[in-house]
């Protein structure tokens, strides 16, 4: 659409599964008649002959010859709708029309405002009580969210976050954490075809104040604060970004159970290592929320047992190479690594980075490495350029040390660890105290 705006007639080619999304995006950009042509899904892994058949075949959306769509899209005269586009306001009301509780539950469900589980209805009284959890004004703008980079941002206020916190069943004292998560600007409901989720971590004194869980069942539904804060982050991501609707604002092929709720706290007092937030520039008495983008793969193990090195090497090799891991380690396990000489997270991470390897052939044979990393490699950006120069049979390093993260949590019923796909950026740790 940017090319159209600069005066270049353009046709965009997509696969047919994205037709509804394309319609929504072009309409939201004021250019609903921009020209599109569709081929069948998929293009990935198709041979040249199969792709040629697409081009000589029929557009599965318009049922007209594909190339006729392309040529006419560039050369047919414009009509009035093409010259005007569409302009409109999309206001959302503060309050809904009064109705019964049952009808409102149905209304929320039917409009895609829930995670398909019942919600606590956000009455004025409940929202007012939730807002007592922060000193910030209800109409203060917290930030903006969108399901993916090519969609438009929606803006939201403290009150809107509180509404979603009520719906999730959260308590007012959790609100600063939920506001902090919302303020990251990172949606927990990405529309990526990769079915990503956002995993969130709480550090600092707020954990004890609100009773977050870092012990038995830390990554499961065994703590009210963890469960409802994580659910609130997902509900607010759905509603404050303009939806998470399959085929439109959500395209994850398989979906992701982490999208229900995936918030946990670090067991700072039982960890032999520096807490995550202190590693990332905050003081031990500051409270923070951190988010990790992914949740796509999860691997697990125990240890450190005699063959722990092989186990970790296998786990890294089984990870998706475009998505670095967060390793959640039970305190028993972490202390075991201290006994082996890894007396800091950084030392253990250095070993991990050195041992997270694949052959160059395997590394590059990944559609997202091809799509995202190969252009950088060809432009000379390291470490991708070196990885591209490697012999196909060379075992190349796949994660840099600063991409691997470790958090200590767990109930010490056994020395277990989980390795979860979760990309992190330093700006994704934010202050909870700022939202008290």
């Amino acid at each position, binding site marked *: 659409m940017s090319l159209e705006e600069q005066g270049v007639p353009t046709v965009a080619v997509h696969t047919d599964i994205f037709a509804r999304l394309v319609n929504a995006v072009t309409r939201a950009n004021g250019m609903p008649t921009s020209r599109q042509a569709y*081929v069948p899904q998929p293009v990935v892994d198709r041979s040249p002959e199969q792709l040629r058949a697409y081009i000589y075949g029929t557009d599965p959306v318009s049922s007209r010859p594909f190339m006729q769509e392309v040529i006419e899209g560039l050369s047919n005269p414009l009509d009035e709708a093409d010259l005007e586009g569409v302009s409109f306001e999309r206001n959302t009301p503060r309050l809904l029309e009064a109705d019964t509780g049952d009808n409102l539950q149905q209304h929320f469900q039917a409009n895609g405002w829930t995670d398909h589980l019942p919600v606590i209805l956000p009455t004025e009284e409940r929202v007012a009580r939730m807002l007592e959890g922060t000193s910030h004004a209800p109409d203060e703008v917290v930030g903006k969210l969108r399901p993916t980079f090519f969609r438009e941002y929606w803006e939201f206020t403290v009150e809107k976050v509180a509404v979603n916190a009520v719906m999730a069943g959260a308590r007012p004292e959790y609100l600063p954490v939920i506001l902090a998560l919302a303020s990251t600007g990172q949606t927990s409901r990405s529309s990526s075809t990769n079915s990503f989720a956002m995993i969130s971590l709480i550090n600092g004194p707020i954990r004890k104040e609100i009773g977050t869980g870092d012990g038995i069942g830390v990554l499961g539904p065994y703590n009210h604060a963890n469960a409802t804060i994580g659910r609130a982050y997902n509900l607010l991501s759905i509603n404050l970004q303009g939806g998470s609707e399959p085929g439109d604002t959500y395209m994850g092929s398989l979906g992701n159970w982490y999208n229900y709720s995936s918030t946990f706290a670090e067991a700072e007092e039982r960890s032999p290592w520096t807490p995550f937030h202190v590693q990332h520039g905050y003081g031990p008495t500051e409270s923070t929320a951190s988010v990790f983008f992914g949740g796509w793969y999860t691997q697990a193990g125990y240890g450190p047992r005699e063959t722990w090195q092989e186990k970790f090497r296998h786990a890294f090799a089984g990870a998706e190479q475009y998505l670095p891991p967060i390793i959640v380690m039970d305190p028993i396990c972490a202390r075991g690594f201290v006994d082996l000489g890894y007396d800091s997270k950084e030392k253990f991470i250095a070993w991990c980075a050195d041992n997270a390897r694949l052959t160059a052939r395997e590394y590059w044979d990944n559609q997202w490495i091809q799509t995202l990393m190969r252009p950088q490699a060809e432009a000379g950006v390291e470490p991708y350029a070196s990885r591209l120069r490697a012999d196909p049979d060379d075992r190349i390093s796949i994660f840099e040390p600063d991409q691997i993260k470790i958090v200590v949590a767990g109930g010490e019923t056994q020395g277990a660890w989980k390795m979860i796909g979760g990309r992190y950026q330093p700006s994704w740790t934010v202050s909870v105290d700022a939202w008290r």
Partner: protein
Amino acid sequence: MTNKLIVHDPRGYPPRVTGKRLAPRLTALEGKVVFLVDCLFDNSDLFMDQMQHWFAQHLPTVRIRTIRPRESWYDDPDMRATIGEEGDAAILGVGL
């Protein structure tokens, strides 16, 4: 009588949509420069190769040039500037 509740709308605030016009179309493609924009998704280069073959066979006077953005997903103003200065039309593709 059934009790009725007043509740908040949970949605955020979408931006206003402002209409934009399409670029003027070409009266004919013959002799024009058409850029095939390989958007860098896996296999889109092969797809664009096949598009190029189609043009060579069916509209050989169209001057096809292929171009790639610096990265997939992100806008590349330099690439757009090249297309604007040196091209008459563009075909972008292909997604997933």
